[in-house]
């Protein structure tokens, strides 16, 4: 998959991941980088931005393996944003698909 596509939809991927489950940073970065190869460090500034826009909140929670971890949770606003972005994404994909199929037929 093209690198430009991947990075453009990073925000949607993070929101969608958090829509399914509450995550700590490492988990989130790890899961996303499994399907999309990005430099992992850039997810943290993105998370900070999402937090300052009040799309996510954070809290610390103890873990069995060691010190407490910072967890990220979607807010109501974040949920709405996720839905909106997802809808936009699917419409976009559908339109591009239709276009590509159309141009095949015309060839």
């Amino acid at each position, binding site marked *: 998959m093209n690198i*430009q596509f991947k*990075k*453009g939809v*990073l925000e949607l991927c993070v929101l969608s991941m958090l829509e399914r489950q509450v995550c*700590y*940073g*490492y988990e989130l*970065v790890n899961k996303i*980088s499994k399907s999309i190869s990005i*430099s*992992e*460090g*850039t997810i*943290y*500034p993105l*998370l*900070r*931005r999402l937090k*300052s826009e009040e799309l996510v909140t954070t809290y610390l929670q103890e873990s069995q*393996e*060691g*010190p407490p*971890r*910072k967890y990220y949770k979607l807010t109501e606003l974040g949920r709405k944003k996720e839905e909106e972005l997802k809808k936009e994404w699917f419409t976009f994909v559908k339109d591009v698909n239709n276009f590509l199929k159309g141009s095949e037929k015309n060839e």
Partner: protein
Amino acid sequence: MNKKEFLRRLSELIKDVPEEEKKDILFDYEEHFRIGLEKGRKEEEIAASLGDPKVIAKQSRASCILKEAEKTTSVNNIMRAIFAAVGLGFFNLVIVLGPAIGLIGILVALFASAFAITVSGVAVLFGTLIGPVFAWNVYIPFAAVVSIPLGIGLTTLGLLALIGTFYLAKFFYKLCISYLKINLQIITNRRNRE
């Protein structure tokens, strides 16, 4: 690069971010390293997959400094925000620094004019009232009947203009912050796509 080196470089690159924010940013990466090590990865491997600290620092710095300028109004803060934005790339040198210089120019010109009007009003007034008492050689081409109201009028006008310019400066400050915010969003998205 190992964990210590990575964190030291990042910390050095964001040293002008407020202490609280800086701690917060470093905490995230420390945690990332810690959990990665627990999962059996090597420090070097984790650092490599995190990417260049420079890229991370640029993204974190610009938004932090802007947040600070929004919280406490000061010329110093807005200047730092402008320069942090300019530092994000050549593209920004044109679309941020250009308008910034323009706005500052307008404000300086307005302040200077308002100040000049006030001074001239005070001068006319004093010239008329006190000039004759001390036998100063002041030439005012109006009769006192005209020049006294003229002096008072000019002084008032000048002071009002000063106050007006002050409010305009405040408005420009807010405008600047909204502009930088939008700019930052565009720039970071652009950078992510690059």
